[in-house]
């Protein structure tokens, strides 16, 4: 049977398989967001009816000096999250994969994800507080920095929170990389090994290219997730001291939920979503576009 015939057989019924996903996402995620989009062009306090205000919220947003700070912090998060947890996740996956005790050695990295957010927030709070667990440990080993207020000044506080999130996210990335490794067929690898490839060279030339689909997933999700960073910052510093660790998602939350300025919050949300969308589409277009041509 020729490829064209196959394609036609599949393509005719294919929408049926794609429809449930599209429908559920459209109804529960897109529709509410459409409402948010509308609100971003209005003056709305959550009580009275929204009053159309055109671009006022957007003008206010771009003339707010704190926005630049939040934008810079958000970019810091993106850079931090597509490097640290991804690299560590890959390292853990490659080292444990095929290792005799691999499943057990991987476990410490998975635990943090399984632990509930409440406990994680409290733990990192007292790891990073001045003279907290980290300070005490440094002091014990006679290292400098025992009295550092890790969360007390920017951009250091953002960096320390990236470390905290790396602790939680690296294991998840490792797990996804393991799934990627499992989908690699064994034969070509055996052949490469017979040709004398081993260690880093085997990884670089034979494994890494094959990991590309899953790397796309991991990095794609990291970009989206990091742009939306909220929880950890809200729990640990609430964006402070001052606004030194505020991210865009936090500004959005404050406007909406603290100040009841739903319109302003929605405008930031829309801006944030556009940035996220652009970043992830550029990345995915590049990654998946290439893959499509090959496949």
């Amino acid at each position, binding site marked *: 049977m020729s490829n064209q015939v196959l394609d036609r057989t599949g393509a005719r019924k294919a929408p049926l398989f794609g429809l*449930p996903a599209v*429908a559920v996402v459209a109804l529960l995620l897109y529709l509410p967001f459409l409402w948010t989009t509308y609100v971003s062009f209005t003056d709305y306090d959550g009580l*009275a009816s*929204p009053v159309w205000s055109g671009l006022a919220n957007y003008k206010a947003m771009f003339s707010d000096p704190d926005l630049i700070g939040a934008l810079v912090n958000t970019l810091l998060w993106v850079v931090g999250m597509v490097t640290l947890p991804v690299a560590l996740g890959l390292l853990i996956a490659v080292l444990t994969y095929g290792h005799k005790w691999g499943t057990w050695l991987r476990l410490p990295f998975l635990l943090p994800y399984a632990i509930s957010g409440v406990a994680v927030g409290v733990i990192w709070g007292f790891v990073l507080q001045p*003279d907290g667990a980290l300070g005490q440990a440094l002091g014990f080993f006679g290292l400098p920095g025992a009295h550092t*207020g890790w969360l007390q000044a920017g951009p250091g506080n953002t960096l320390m929170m990236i470390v905290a999130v790396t602790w939680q996210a690296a294991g998840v990335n490792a797990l996804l990389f393991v799934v990627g490794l499992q989908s690699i067929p064994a034969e070509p690898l055996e052949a490469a090994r017979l040709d004398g490839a081993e260690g880093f060279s085997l990884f670089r030339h034979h494994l890494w290219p094959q990991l590309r689909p899953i790397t796309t997933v991991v990095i794609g999700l990291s970009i989206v997730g990091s742009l939306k960073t909220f929880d950890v910052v809200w729990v640990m510093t609430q964006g402070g*001291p*001052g606004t030194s660790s505020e991210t865009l998602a936090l500004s959005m939350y404050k406007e909406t*939920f603290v100040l*009841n300025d739903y319109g302003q919050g929605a405008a930031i949300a829309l801006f944030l979503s556009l940035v996220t969308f652009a970043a992830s589409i550029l990345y995915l277009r590049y990654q998946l576009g290439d893959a499509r041509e090959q496949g």
Partner: protein
Amino acid sequence: MQRNTNRKALAALVIAGALALSACGGGGGTAGPAKGEDKPVDSLKFYNDKGGWKDAFTQVGAASKKDVGVGMEPVGYSDSNTYTAFIRSSFRTKEKADLFTWHTGKELQDLVDQKLVAETTDQWTKAVADGNIPEQLKQYFTYGDKQYCVPLNAGYWVMYYNKAVFKKAGVTQTPKTWAELTQVADKVKAAGVKPFYQTNILFSFVWFETLLAGKDPDLYDALATGKAKYTDPGVVEVMNEWKKMIDAGYFSDPGAKTEPQAQLKNGDVAMINFGTWFSGNLNTLKMKAGTDYDFFVIPNVNPELPKTSMIFETGPVCSAAGSDHASTVKKWTDWWVTPQAQTAWANSRGDLSFNPKAEVKDPGLAKLNKDVGGDGYRLINRWFEATPVPVANKALEVFGAFVTKPGDPMPGLQKIQAEADAYWAKQK
């Protein structure tokens, strides 16, 4: 099996579709509540942002069931922002809250302006006449000559202290004047303990409030109503005084994540300035009132003032206007303000009650409750409720940065004032 799941998923989708359509309509549609028919029920849901009080609420619910046949089930939230947003949205839906906690000041004003909250003028008149609610409280619940909601609690802000630390530092008497308080702080500091608790999240305003209210309560009130500016000399003076105290090492590390009650218990700090509900937190840690900890009234910074400034906090219990259960709500809130109900409520948390006739078991709190009713005190609305939300939010950012790294207060105060100017301009 799989096919079955798929069919279920499909069914779910159809329902989701219906809901999403109505979500679109629900937003822009009918504001203003429709007058519902009255349907008495035998139990009410009580929405609140005080998830930690679940036990106490449940006990009160059992008591009301017994006394008047109307039960109450708490629905607790712990994040007050999510809670506020939830209640605000609920007025547009048929899930109107029969009973919910709220904040006095601008937040309640918003609801009253939109006619979303039920009026309680008759209940107030009766409760004040019966002596169940002090007349002084009325102003916080009054908007345009009418009253709304009833009080949930009342808290006075006092200075808690660790008795063991005071003993170690050789402090034998609680301070009666600001000068004495400073001496106590010096003694405690000499004994190697940080005198006062301070934080850079949320409660960063406490010392600003204490210093300003104790120095110039008129300026405090003027500031809250937009009649004075944050850049006025009196405010700057307070900030500088605060900075001097921080520089003198009077405060604990504002970045500490350890709960204040644990810091007091462990003797990391000697004194904490908190509302009387803090007694409950300390009791949770098995500290004993009068033995392990106690509290004293914070003396005025300015000894010339005729009355002692007492920071005061109260929250309302409200009901949505046009509730289907209005008669049940009235029955329950009538019961709620009685001494019987308030005795149960106060003691379930080891706290005070707004009702002076409630029998408070903790002798220290009972005495305070009586004293404050007397002439020597000037009640000051807590800064957090007294200050408009956007101004308070900006100020909390500024205070948080200030206590972490004190410097020239002026740039920060200008930021707050800019926010205040914008706010008050919009009100006129």
